[in-house]
């Protein structure tokens, strides 16, 4: 674990040895993110690497290869570090990647591990100057006596080269583990959130950040909740939301005060006393929060459900979707095997009409908010032959009526979890991270959003 080769990863093969079930831990994908146009897709893994995929432009000559994603660039974003003061190792695992909106020919993205955020510039080089006077083609200095005339170097095309360079390193601002980063709609600032604090940065300034939320109690023994995720509003640069381990959401307005400890809005659903168990607190912890593209709604994910909230209604969610309620009676075993602590992410489609989230057994779920229909699909090699249509799956209760192809709750593989998913900003293309494999599914029939 940890040692890397320079093997070029392909789309379906990232360290997964076909003949064995052994998975290199460093290859486990830890984050997936489309850029703002959907042309690029970035993944981060436990080994600190970032792999960027680019969508091939649609070509008339080969209609079936249109829109496929191929590897564009791979680089090592973070390395393991050691905090000597606390005698702690800092993992190189990439927790989140966020793209900046494109403003020139280069692409920029932010990647973060537990402690340090980095800004990376991804640029293409497809020309190089040729015809130097003092150097020859290989770069050796010419013998001056052979130079008889002056020439002007000319830019000649070359094989495309993608260069990645770190432009900023934002370090030493977090005592606790960073769980989220979010770029502001002003395209100048971004925030980073750890368990107890949220910091606001300017993209050009690395030696200073402003603390905008601090929920650390004076006495750590009084700690009752931590921050689990945070995001800026997509249009209003003064608004952001953060979720807590208690299942609450807080909307904060940076215009109100420098330190946004007081929320503008608190979104909380009263607990159902009949559903109370030993594990109520764990399963109510929000693992992800996402604004809708419109900015009108919030999507949250806790262990068993996904909820859509209206920004104008704090008392309860607008919609609640049961992701895998059949696990409710199995919480004790999920607690013992640690699965109850899994943090699932959630995603909106481009038109905010469908939400998606992952589950176990390499299943992922989509809920259509308008038709109220939902589907369970599987991301696996067997069911994902190229051009194959995904077959809906069904989980039935143990001992219940079982149709052909149904899977019983007791047969679910809890080691195959889909924690990270992403949806193309405009089209029906989704990226699913299943442990160390990345699956990209496209809906060719319904490419346009509706």
């Amino acid at each position, binding site marked *: 674990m940890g040692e890397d080769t320079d093997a070029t990863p392909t789309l379906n093969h990232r360290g997964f040895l076909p003949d064995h079930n052994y998975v290199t831990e460093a290859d486990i994908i830890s984050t997936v993110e489309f850029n703002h146009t959907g042309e690029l897709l970035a993944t981060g893994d436990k080994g600190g690497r970032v792999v960027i995929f680019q969508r091939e432009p649609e070509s008339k000559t080969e209609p079936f290869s249109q829109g496929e994603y191929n590897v564009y660039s791979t680089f090592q974003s973070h390395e393991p570090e050691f905090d000597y003061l606390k005698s702690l190792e*800092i993992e190189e695992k990439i927790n989140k990647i966020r793209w900046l909106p494109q403003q020139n020919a280069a692409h920029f993205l932010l990647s973060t591990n537990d402690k340090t955020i980095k800004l990376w510039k991804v640029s293409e080089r497809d020309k190089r100057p040729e015809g130097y006077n003092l150097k020859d083609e290989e770069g050796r200095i010419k013998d001056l006596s052979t130079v008889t005339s002056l020439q002007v170097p000319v830019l000649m095309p070359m094989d495309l080269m993608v260069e990645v360079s770190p432009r900023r390193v934002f370090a030493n601002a977090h005592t606790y*583990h960073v769980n989220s980063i979010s770029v502001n709609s002003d395209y100048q600032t971004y925030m980073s959130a750890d368990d107890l604090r949220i910091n606001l940065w300017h993209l050009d300034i690395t030696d200073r950040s402003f603390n905008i939320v601090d929920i650390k109690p004076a006495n750590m023994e009084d700690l009752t909740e931590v921050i689990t995720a945070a995001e800026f509003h997509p249009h209003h640069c003064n608004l952001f939301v953060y979720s807590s381990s208690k299942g609450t959401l807080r909307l904060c307005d940076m215009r109100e005060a420098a330190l946004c400890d007081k929320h503008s809005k608190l979104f909380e659903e009263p607990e159902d006393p009949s559903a109370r168990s030993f594990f109520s607190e764990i399963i109510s912890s929000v693992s992800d929060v996402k604004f809708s593209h419109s900015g009108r709604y919030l999507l949250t994910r806790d262990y068993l459900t996904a909820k859509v909230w209206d920004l104008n209604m704090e008392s309860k969610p607008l919609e609640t979707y049961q992701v895998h309620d059949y696990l409710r009676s199995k919480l004790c075993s999920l607690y013992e095997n640690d699965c109850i602590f899994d943090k699932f992410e959630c995603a909106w489609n481009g038109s905010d009409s469908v939400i998606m989230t992952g589950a176990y057994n390499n299943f992922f779920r989509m809920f259509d908010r308008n038709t109220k229909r939902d589907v369970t699909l599987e991301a696996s090699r067997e069911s994902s032959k190229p051009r194959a249509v995904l077959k809906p799956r069904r989980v039935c209760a143990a001992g219940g009526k079982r149709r052909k192809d149904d899977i019983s709750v007791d047969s679910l593989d809890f080691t195959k979890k889909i924690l990270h998913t992403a949806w193309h900003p405009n089209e029906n293309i989704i990226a699913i991270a299943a442990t160390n494999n990345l699956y990209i599914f496209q809906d060719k029939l319904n490419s346009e959003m509706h």
Partner: protein
Amino acid sequence: MGGALSHDADVMEVTAEAKRIMVVALGKLYSSRTQRGGLRLHRSLLLTMVMKSARDMYHAAQETEWAAAEEQQPPTEEPTGAQIELQEGKPLTSPGNEVENSPTMLRRDADNKENMSPPRPTQHSRKRRGKAAVEPDFLPCKKAKLEQKNVPQQLILSTVLLCEYMNCSSEVGAPPAPMPVQRAIAAC
């Protein structure tokens, strides 16, 4: 009496599950100390909360058990200070009603217990303790306790807990010194 026996069985089930949850939580807390990347605050907090609610449930279940046992015997001695303490709490229902309502009843007692009865020796005390003599609160305390006959039960439970979590952490090397629950997350 049938009612009392089935009540006891329910209470036993709850206490057994609560104990198992506590032990697993302790094991996970200890093994997380050696995890790569350092102590995860969120996870430690959730484990601590599960442990506390399991422990509250466990103590509440034990109280109802002792109270039920109490009611069945005429008091043979002067009530001790601790006994009065128990009776000052929210009135407990008779064993007959316990069967259906025991989980919620126990929980209500657990919730109310904190408000009504003074902190008990084995309970989580909200008072901040000095840095020096911090004693794990699941180990037997030297202060006066409930009736003598119940003391051995408590001692056995605490010893069992201690042994079990020590075993849990034995894979990670020499077991570290026991920490009180509330300190588990303050360490980071």
